[in-house]
């Protein structure tokens, strides 16, 4: 069973990286760009039959390792 996880910085948390990328894209002439935020993406495969159980496990991985809950939000999607 495969899941995708996207991890993004919480709103209001400074995103120095996004800022630089946005400025660069605008300088490169992409002037219709309104905003860009950068985050992380994981593709996880777990060996489980039961989807709820599997999802719970993936959620645990996020909480315990993949996500810094103090500054990041995350979303899990089955793929």
């Amino acid at each position, binding site marked *: 069973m495969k899941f995708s996880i996207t991890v993004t910085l919480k709103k*209001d*948390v*400074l*995103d120095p990286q996004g800022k*630089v990328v946005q400025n660069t894209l605008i300088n490169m002439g992409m002037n219709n760009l309104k905003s860009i935020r950068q985050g992380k993406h994981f593709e996880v495969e777990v060996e489980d039959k039961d989807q709820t159980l599997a999802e719970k496990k993936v959620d645990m991985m996020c909480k315990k390792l993949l996500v*810094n809950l103090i*500054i990041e939000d995350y979303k899990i999607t089955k793929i």
Partner: protein
Amino acid sequence: MKITNQIIEKHGLKLEEFKIIKKLIKREPNLLELGVFSAMWNEHCSYKSSRIHLKKLPTKGKQVIQGPGENAGVIDIGDDDAIIFKIESHNHPSFIEPYQGAATGVGGILRDVFTMGARPIALLNSIHFGSPKHPKTKSLLNGVVSGIGGYGNCIGIPTVAGETKFNETYNENILVNAMAVGHAKKDKIFYSKAKGINKSVVYVGSKTGRDGIHGASMASAEFDENSEEKKPTVQVGDPFTEKLLLEACLELMKDNSIISIQDMGAAGLTSSSVEMASKGDLGIELDLEKVPCREENMTPYEMMLSESQERMLIILEDHKEKNAKKIFDKWDLDFVIIGKTTNTNNLTLKFKNKIVGEIPIEALASKAPIYDRKWSKRKPQKNEINLKKLKKIKIEDALIKILSSPNHSNKSWITDQFDQNVMCDTVQKSGSDAAIVRIHNKDKAIAVSVDSSANYCKSHPILGGKQIVCENWRNLIAVGAKPLAITNCLNFGNPENNEIMGEFAECLEGIKQACEFLNYPVVSGNVSFYNGTNKKNIYPTPVIGGVGLIKKLSKPLNHEFKKENSTLVLIGKTFGHLEQSCFLRENYSIIDGLPPEVNLLNEKNNGENLLNLIEKNYILSSHDVSSGGLITALSEMSIGSNYGVKIQKPKNLTNLMKYFFGEDQARYIIEIDTKNLPKVEKILKDNDVYYENIGFTQKDHFEIEGELKISTKDLFKINNAWYNSY
């Protein structure tokens, strides 16, 4: 909106203090004003609990250009050169988010140093963690170390020294202290004191966001029912922007545009503007609508209390705005005139053409409360350890235990994560007693070291306070530097607790005595109270950061043995003091008794004479003897090199363990060319320095005759093993 008691408390103010506020401004403050007061009157900005004690520290000397009171201390190192340095804590943020907490700690202390006109040339840190076995320790450790590296490496300033300690007392409250050292020209030092009326107040650097807005945290929903919930957010460091800010500020400092400059640290815009006005004895008016904001709909309250990083406030001379703006534009940084100086002696805050807050500057600064908190003396424990009653242990096993312990293990796994060589002036990187950094383009250098001894300070705060200053002084001497001045970071528990306040007062007393005697003044520092909970406070942990001068750098001196068959001399007398020693702690888990006595006279005499020997070029390597005693110091000298030792036991030895593991102060081990021994002995004798010849260096083996013989390679392995198995 009515200010309730709950709101007052949420701002960290006492009801008593609120009454004083009302009296000072002759009315009830509004919420914005309350926020400003809370920022200025908190412990961090006002030093309300510590001030009367700090006053006792010696802060003057021929070498001092600027003592405490400015962003950082400034000392004279001869010619037209000045060194600007300071240490600061970032304990609480680092416990919440270790990477960002440590990173922004480094960023903050760097700003303190470059606001004064210095180019930073070295970073140091003192980091204290709980027991390695505590479940939080490992991730805190890894996070803090990479945060320190992440910031320093990116901005391109070498992190050259530090200390890393583990102790259960920090299980729920780690310490992260960062120190920055910069170099400036003596006649190009910038201060925060404002001067002149109607001068432009300029905001430069990053935009303001809702970072770390403390007071309001929980109650914020109540403050403004219509707005969405605004949780305080963790400050995220942006070393890239700080690098730009550094270069832009230094560029602007080349001409005479700046009247006054101040970084926005804790309490950001509030403390920077109030401090400038207060020192200049004038008023300041800010038009908050002009503040560059990162988020939409930020309120004046949020702008004034935001702790967003990488920002500065500058007061400019007339007609210099245009040129200054050009410089900041070049570096892609915001540059906005947000206000002006006034003759009202008020902090005046405008928003959308309305005055939204107005407070007399003196109410925020000089009239802030100062407390003479109750404190109690520590009743010293007695030394009652009977060695005969302890389980017998082999000297070899005891040594291995120490060298492989987390506290004494080699820290290269940490320091390899720091760029120590960038700027190409690092002459001695971390690993020795002090780091040596050359002054760019000159043949002189400074030596720097940070030191603390929480166990000693806990047991006997006065002695402990004295000891850390001496150890720090010794570390600089050991690399051939003349110690000039210190900065200190005073990490303590809750000052409202008599005992803790007593630890504070007494540690300071000890620091004072040592600094006075050694002519080693305090030029800057930082106090961090409320470490731990009221019931469980951390051990008193003052950290001393020292700077010394090497006038003429020929070749660097460090603690690594240089060759075989040289003579080893132990300077200073060994009494065998084992109470509070690493030996008892690591081998028997005993943490009892008093720390070793500190004899300032011997300390000074031994140090000054060693410095004389170093300057005469008699010393091949030298190392101070501290935690772990003589044998630990000797093994550290071996581990760094490929040479071992052959040590003879002294003839009338009472106790082997006491001799080899005792932590008596004022001692150094020196390696000298055997042919120079007579000359060295003469100088030591002529100057009443106690010394012993303890043996020789030899190839490959670490040996104490009749007791132990280990290959130096094994010693190295033992010393380097801990982290890999952690």
